[in-house]
Structure formats: C-alpha cells, structure tokens
C-alpha cells in the first residue's frame, strides 16, 4: 500500500519507526527550547510528578498522553514557568511573552469582547491599545474567526470560544505553545476541525508545541512524537515517533502508520497503568 507522501529516508534517522525511544532520537541539531531533567513535584496531598525527563526541540510537536492525575498538567505548568519543581531542573529557552498556554476551558474574561480577550497579552506587556487591538483582530482572522470581534464569550459557541483562546495564545507569536487538553470539552467534529487548524497555524510560524491529551488517536494525529506517562506520580513510559508529515495528509487516520503508532501508544499506556496497578498490589 503506497502512501501518497514519500516517507523520509531511514538514513536521516527519522524513518517510519514506530516506537523508537524519544530520548534517543538523533534529530536535534539545535538546542532544546525546553527541558525537564529528573523533575519531581510534590503537592501537600502527595507526589504528583516524576522523576520525569522531557525535552522539546524548537518547532517540534509533542503529545503527552497519560491517565488522569498522572501529572501531565503539572509538567505543562513547569514548562510554562508557572510552577517550580520540588526536585530536578527546568531549562527554558523561551522567555516571557514567548510562551503561551491554552487551557482545557477557553478561559476567557466573560466581561471582555473577543478582541479585548485576544489583545490582553499584548496590553499586559505594555503595547498600546490600538496596536494591540489591531494585532488581536489579525490573530482572530488567523484562527478563521471573523465578525465576532465585538462579541463576548457568552455569545460564542464552545468551538468559537476555543478559537478565541487559541488566537490569544498566538497573538504574541510564541516560540513555545502549551496546549492542556484544549479540545477535551468539544464534540468530535469540532475537535477534528481544530486539529487541522492547529497544524495550519503551526506551519505559519513553527512554534514548539506540547499537546496534553487523554486521547491516543488525537495524540498520534496531532504530534510528531508521543510520550506516554504512567499514572501519578507520572514518569515517562515509552511512546512513539510518528513518521508522517505535518500537517497530516488526507486520509491519514486510515493509514498503516497511524494504526501502528496508535497501537504502540495504546500498548505502552496499558503497560504503564498495569505496572502501576501491579506495584500497588
């Protein structure tokens, strides 16, 4: 079965290899944009994450998959610099204004219009209101939202609100984009449309993206690399490198590459959860 796109040659180390260990990949010619080294995070109710190692090359899309409570969101907050690890090191090459987060809920200010919500990061950084609004409107257009500039969040559908949230993240042209289960509350059709749009936006400015999800198929579709985490406190437990171009070619979900990668990730996920259950009993 010939794929409509040419697989990269194995000599470049990228290949179609499903299940290559992410940390052993020999892809990075540039320094990572973010790196977690043996980080552990303890909360008052107990350990939440780690020890966990993770690094991210500039322009790479990586998905973090794991069961609920495995510390995915905690790892994301470490990468965003919103939290400090209890132990271990966090290195971040992206400074303030170069990192953006999209949360599971749109997290918009209900009293502010779509434009004002999107302009917020710029205005907090001291950009003048007129310039900030101009760029906010441009960002809304990039996420295919037109005619909602003056609408407030309550007047938008769930998918539209999520696009506003995405526009707000993109308005500063971040080098690191952290997506914390951004589509979890949306229906399947909206999810798929947004997945395509995230890829289309990624092509424009190539930010590094970390995409947290529960959904194996979504992870394989979205990311060039999937990292599986054990249940909390989460550790890395395998994953897959998906050797297919981004954005995905039409019909990618029905290809052998997609199927194999999804199976590998599912198996690793099952093993990671099984190991934890076994250790507990």
């Amino acid at each position, binding site marked *: 079965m010939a794929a409509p796109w040419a697989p990269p040659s194995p000599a470049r180390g990228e290949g179609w290899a499903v299940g290559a260990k992410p940390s052993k990949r020999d892809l990075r010619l540039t320094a990572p944009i973010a790196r977690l080294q043996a980080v552990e995070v303890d909360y008052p109710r107990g350990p939440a994450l780690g020890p966990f190692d993770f690094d991210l090359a500039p322009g790479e899309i990586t998905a973090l998959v794991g069961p609920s409570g495995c510390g995915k969101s905690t790892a994301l907050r470490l990468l965003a610099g919103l939290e400090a690890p209890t132990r271990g090191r966090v290195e971040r090459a992206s400074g303030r204004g170069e990192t953006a987060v999209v949360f599971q809920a749109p997290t918009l*200010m209900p009293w*502010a219009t779509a434009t004002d919500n999107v302009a917020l*990061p710029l205005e*907090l*950084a001291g950009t003048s209101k007129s310039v900030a609004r101009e760029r906010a409107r441009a960002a809304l257009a990039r996420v295919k939202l037109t005619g909602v500039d003056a609408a407030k969040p309550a*007047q938008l559908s769930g998918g539209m609100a999520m696009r506003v949230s995405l526009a707000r993240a993109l308005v500063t042209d971040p080098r690191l984009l952290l997506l914390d289960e951004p589509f979890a509350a949306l229906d399947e059709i909206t999810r798929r449309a947004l997945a395509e749009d995230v890829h289309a936006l990624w092509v424009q400015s190539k930010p590094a993206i970390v995409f947290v999800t529960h959904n194996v198929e979504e992870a394989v579709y979205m990311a060039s690399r999937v990292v599986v985490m054990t249940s909390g406190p989460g550790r890395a437990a395998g994953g897959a490198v998906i050797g297919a171009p981004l954005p995905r070619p039409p019909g990618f979900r029905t290809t052998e590459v997609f199927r194999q990668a999804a199976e590998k990730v599912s198996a690793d996920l099952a093993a990671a959860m099984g190991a934890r259950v076994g250790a507990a009993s």
Partner: protein
Amino acid sequence: MNRGLSLLAPFVLIAILLAVWEIACRALAVPQFLLPPPSAIAEATARNMPLLMSSAWNTLSMAVLAWIVASVFACGLALLVGTHSLIEDAVRPLAVVIQVTPIVAIAPLVNIWAGLDHPQRGVVGLAAVVAFFPIFSGALTGLKGADPDLERLFDLYGATRLQRLFRLRLPAAVPFVLEGHKVAAGLAVVGAVVAEFVAGSGGAQGLAWRILEASNRLQTAKMFAALLVLALMGVLLYGVLQVAERVILRRWRGR
C-alpha cells in the same frame, strides 16, 4: 400553561384571601382592635395617606443613605482585605464575631453614640451595619473568585499587581458585588425599622414609628396600613434593584 393566566393567578389568590378575611371578620364580629377587616384597613390607608407617604419617605431615605454608606465602607474594606492576605487573616475572625452578634442587641449602643438628639443618625448607622456584610462578603468573594486559570494567564504574561486588580479581579467581582448590594438593600430597610423601634422616641418619624404609635393607641387598622406601605416599599425597592442588576449584568456579559 397560559402566560396571562399564570400572571393573574397570584392576584386571584390575594382577592380570595381578602374576601375570606372580610367575610370572617363580619360574620364572627371580630373586634376592630383585634383584627380589622380589609375594608377598614383600606379606609385607614386612604385617610392617613399623606402621613404614611412622608413616613415611608423618611424610612426609605434613611435606608438608602445607610445602604450607600455601607457600600462605600464594605467595598473599600473588601478591596484592602482582598489584596493583602495578612489583613484578611486579621480581619476574618473579627468579621465573623460582628456578623453573628444579633443586630438588635447593639441598637441601643448605636443610638447612644449617635446622640439622643439625632435619632436619624442612629437609624442610619444601625441600618448601615446590617447592610455592610452582604456587600463586604460579596465583594471579597468576587475579588478572590476569579478563574484560577485566568490568574495563571496573568502570571504567565507577567501582569503587575495593578493590572491584575483592574483587568481581572475588579471586573470578575462585578456579579458578586451586585448580588451583595441587592441583598443589602432589603436588609437596610429591616435595619432602619429595627433601629426605629429600639429608639422608640418618634424622632425619626418613619414607618416603624407609625406602627408603634398606632399600636399604643390600639389603632390596629392604621398599623396594618403602615405595614402595607412598608411591604409595598420593599417590593418596589427589590424590583428596581432586580432590573438594575439585570441591565448591568447584560452589559457585563454581553447578553
């Protein structure tokens, strides 16, 4: 269900109750000082209308003044407490103690402090104390109740204290502050009436004094008339604030 019919239903019920009341009073020959029939109350209301209206105005203006005073103090303190966690730790137990103390119990004190020559001040002061808490706790809840992920977003973009206050916490507090003001308005009227009862001198010339005065003279129909005006005043106040809240909230969230 027919919309017109459901709007009409409460009025029909009131009419039936009034009719039963009137018939029962006449049939059982209940003495007027014990329970006057609705017709006597209506007659007393009409006869005393100018006096009742001016008394209602006194009570209302004292309650509204108290509400404004309470609003200024409550919002100011909430702002101070909401932005400094140490002050909050210090204030919270004190606020609880004051809140659980029955307000009637401190009324004589407030009247003494206001000066026996200035009964209005005492009434306003007491009503303000009663109206203070719903506004204070509403404002504090609102200031501290912004979406935690929005707070994180402000962290991420390095917002200053003032940016966080003006762009996140104050706007997020609006619905809570409005709700607090709505509850406080009703309580301000209650506080004003209680304070007038406790003062008991008639210096404030409000509706509560009309009730006391009529009660001392066994003019029961007039007592009911004053009560009726008081109830209508409460309904009016509640209606105005309900509409105001709805209009402001519609602007706030755009729908």
